[in-house]
């Protein structure tokens, strides 16, 4: 089984299934295809080999590519039922799926204005009325999940689930852009940073040297 990812510093979609599998102790081979630097982070070299979507992440399981982070997470949850990647309580599970679906298709202002960039620090960058609305919604989701389902641990549904893997890149963004959070959201962020899978991902991100000039003009090479 392989998980095909892109740059750990930038690729928030890659981070989700990778963190999910690593944190859950599912063994996989990592295949990293880095951004083509000349494309401004738009293209991933060689990804066409892994199927029609032409995007990371891809899970290769039984020789077949499965693309899209949510489809990958569902597939992993199904193939490794003993890992309980979704909450076992039915009502909690439906909320977990709903907030992942919401993350999957929403929060454009947050994603566009505050792209994931683990190594960097840009306090205040990207903050505007729309990203503020997205941030408030994220904080609201976290609060509601923690209060309703979080009794058994520090994560959204107590113990680790797909939902935490799904929101991990948002936690990274809040740190990079120094978004102020209420205490409960701060505590949840800390719990995400403490996850082994997340720590391993960050460690990999900090070892990378590629950069997207558009995001980090101060780091541009003079060509």
């Amino acid at each position: 089984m392989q998980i095909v990812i892109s740059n750990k510093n930038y690729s928030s979609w890659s981070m989700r299934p990778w963190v999910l599998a690593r944190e859950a102790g599912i063994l996989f081979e990592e295949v990293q295809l880095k951004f083509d630097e000349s494309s401004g982070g738009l293209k991933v070299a060689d990804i066409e080999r892994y199927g029609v979507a032409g995007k990371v992440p891809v899970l290769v399981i039984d020789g077949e590519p499965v693309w899209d982070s949510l489809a990958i997470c569902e597939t992993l949850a199904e193939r490794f039922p003993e890992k309980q990647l979704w909450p076992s309580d039915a009502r909690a599970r439906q909320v977990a799926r709903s907030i992942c679906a919401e993350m999957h298709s929403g929060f454009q202002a947050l994603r566009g204005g505050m792209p994931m960039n683990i190594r960097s620090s840009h306090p205040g960058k990207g903050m505007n009325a729309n990203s503020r609305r997205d941030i408030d919604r994220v904080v609201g989701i976290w609060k509601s999940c923690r209060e309703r389902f979080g009794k058994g641990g520090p994560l959204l549904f107590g113990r680790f689930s797909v939902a935490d893997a799904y929101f991990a890149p948002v936690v990274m963004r809040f740190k990079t852009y120094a978004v102020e959070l209420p205490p409960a959201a701060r505590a949840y962020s800390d719990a995400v940073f403490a996850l082994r899978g997340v720590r391993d991902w960050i460690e990999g991100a900090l070892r990378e040297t590629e950069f997207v000039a558009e995001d980090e003009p101060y780091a541009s090479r003079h060509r």
Partner: protein
Amino acid sequence: MLLVIGNKNYSSWSLRSWIALKMLGVPVDKKRIALRRPETKAEILRYSSAGRVPILRDGDTVVWGSLAILEYLAEKRPQLWPSDPAQRAKARSVAAVRRDPRERAACLTTLAECPLLARKRTFIRSHINEADIRYLRAGARSRN
């Protein structure tokens, strides 16, 4: 069971859940909320704090987002996905791809750039939704 949807003419997200329920023959009440009106947001918020359609209510359970609704229904009626695990994984990939605003934007850009398709405005309109428009307007860069 209650399915809260947007306009049948515009809301492609709603259509997906509606079709799934229809195909399964599950009896369901429908609440239609007209989109892009001053009262739209408040009306949707009565059903889910996410403020977006589609929303499925089943007793105490509230599920929002068409992919989450599909998975909820599939838990009850597994025939919704192909029974072969590999095919099921592929079906999930395909179902999810069109949800990604970047990919949708890429699709729309391709459509717009193709003169033959650009004339088929109704076709393009049937594939566009509010999230796409917001995304295209925001001019966000497409990157994973």
